[in-house]
């Protein structure tokens, strides 16, 4: 089963995604696709907190800050928690080398390939499209690219849900029991 979750920040997407991927994995391999590249102490503290929160859940952490299908495909097929699409696109698009306009296409293809490979997968993205912000060209290209990836993943997934204050608004399919 393929599940896509989005919504505002701190609404419970990651917690739900963790629970769903654990349920889907059963006794099979369960991978956490780690997308964050820590840039400072605040990021390192966040990574440490996330690691603590996943302790005892049986996740194998796989570092995949870029083109995630490549790192994952070397392992036995299993269930993937991919958190988050937002971070992956930021890594692909903005680096010390500059801004890469081809990043959204590359990230999209890699994620679709990963979805094909996985036995089950839960994607987590962020909904950042309903404000009145006037963004610069590249921030807007990032938002447009992320939305395009989200829409492609939603078309490929069995279930699409918006998470709001920990509650679920189903847009497509059903959640596993």
């Amino acid at each position, binding site marked *: 089963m393929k599940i896509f979750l989005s919504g505002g920040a701190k609404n419970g997407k990651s917690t739900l995604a963790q629970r769903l991927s654990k349920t889907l994995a059963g006794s099979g391999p369960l991978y956490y696709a780690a997308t964050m590249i820590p840039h400072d102490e605040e990021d390192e503290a966040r990574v440490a907190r996330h690691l603590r929160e996943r302790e005892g859940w049986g996740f194998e952490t796989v570092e995949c800050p870029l083109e995630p299908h490549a790192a994952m495909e070397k392992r036995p097929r299993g269930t993937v928690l991919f958190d988050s699409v937002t971070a992956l696109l930021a890594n692909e698009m903005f680096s010390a080398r500059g801004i890469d306009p081809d990043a959204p296409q590359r990230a999209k293809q890699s994620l679709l390939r990963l979805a094909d490979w996985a036995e089950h997968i839960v994607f987590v993205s962020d*909904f950042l499209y309903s*404000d*009145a912000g006037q963004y610069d060209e590249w921030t807007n290209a990032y*938002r*447009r690219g992320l*939305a395009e990836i989200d*829409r492609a993943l939603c*078309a490929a997934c069995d279930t699409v849900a918006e998470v709001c204050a920990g509650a679920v608004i189903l847009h497509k399919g059903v959640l596993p029991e």
Partner: protein
Amino acid sequence: MDLMIGGAFQGKTAYAKERYGFSDGEIFTCTAEAGADFSYPCVRRLEQYALNCLRRGIAPEQAILARREEWKQAVLICDDISCGVVPMEAETRAWREATGRMLAALSREADTVTRLFCGLPQRLK
């Protein structure tokens, strides 16, 4: 009138084309400079029409309701710009509020209201 709303880049226009079979030539895109042309069967970016009204010193809600006869058979599409922090700039603040009031008024007038989320339609009315 059918109203489509949703965040930026969520597939509102693509969905309208699929649902009603509109060609590109049947869809008018509003701009802050030119405003709206409601002679088209589908009018999108109504939030830009709202900005056009504000810059002409008129309230978008009243302005669009006064033109009801022109769009009562149309499909209207608008970006939801209502979330996020209160904007620093006075015009953006006024624009956001005026767009919200316009959408609430249009929603009351609409036969159907559909919200697009990641390309998926959610029927609100």
